[in-house]
């Protein structure tokens, strides 16, 4: 119930291509669906996030598509660049209740390599 399943585990894309990473969840109580980007030796950084009442969110070359009925969401990276090579984690956030704190449930991660 608390899992977020992410695929593929690794992805190789040519420069200028579209990178697509998919995630699925079960718990309908998740309240936000963020994507984090992590470069080697660094901590993850928030890339983009979407609420479950929105079907799509775009920020620059990065787009989240959200399908509430299918309980799936995906990250699309348009015009992929070598600098996008990193590990991407989808996540879902849960509310802990009265204290209005919560936590992230991470997917397993996708290692993206963009070839020049």
């Amino acid at each position, binding site marked *: 119930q608390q899992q977020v399943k992410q695929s593929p585990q690794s992805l190789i894309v040519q420069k200028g291509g579209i990178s697509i990473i998919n995630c699925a969840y079960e718990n309908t109580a998740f309240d936000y669906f963020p994507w984090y980007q992590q470069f080697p*030796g660094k*901590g993850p950084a*928030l890339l983009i996030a979407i609420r479950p009442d929105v079907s799509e969110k775009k920020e620059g070359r990065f787009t989240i598509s959200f399908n509430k009925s299918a309980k799936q969401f995906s990250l699309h990276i348009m015009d992929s660049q070598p600098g996008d090579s990193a590990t991407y984690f989808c996540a879902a*956030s849960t509310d802990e209740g009265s*204290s209005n704190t919560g936590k*992230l449930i991470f997917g*397993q991660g996708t290692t993206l390599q963009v070839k020049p």
Partner: protein
Amino acid sequence: DAMVIQNPRYQVTQFGKPVTLSCSQTLNHNVMYWYQQKSSQAPKLLFHYYDKDFNNEADTPDNFQSRRPNTSFCFLDIRSPGLGDAAMYLCATSLQGEHYEQYFGPGTRLTVT
């Protein structure tokens, strides 16, 4: 620049020798998190603080403890490190109610010999 700082960046300890990792933040966030990340895996939440309220994950080993003496600082104590505790330890912060948006430090790479 406001940020999350972790010290040291690399820590080597001996099997069974206690070690303390530190995290400080200038974001003035009231929620702080500690994660363990092993190679090619997702970060795994160990515990988090809302102000001084401590929240332990059910599967966090007793070997791991934490202290938050004030808003800015948080410490991770590993009382008797085992070889399986070698990992990257990440500290993160967020505002109350914005737990989807966490700000991570660069991590401390722990090696156990």
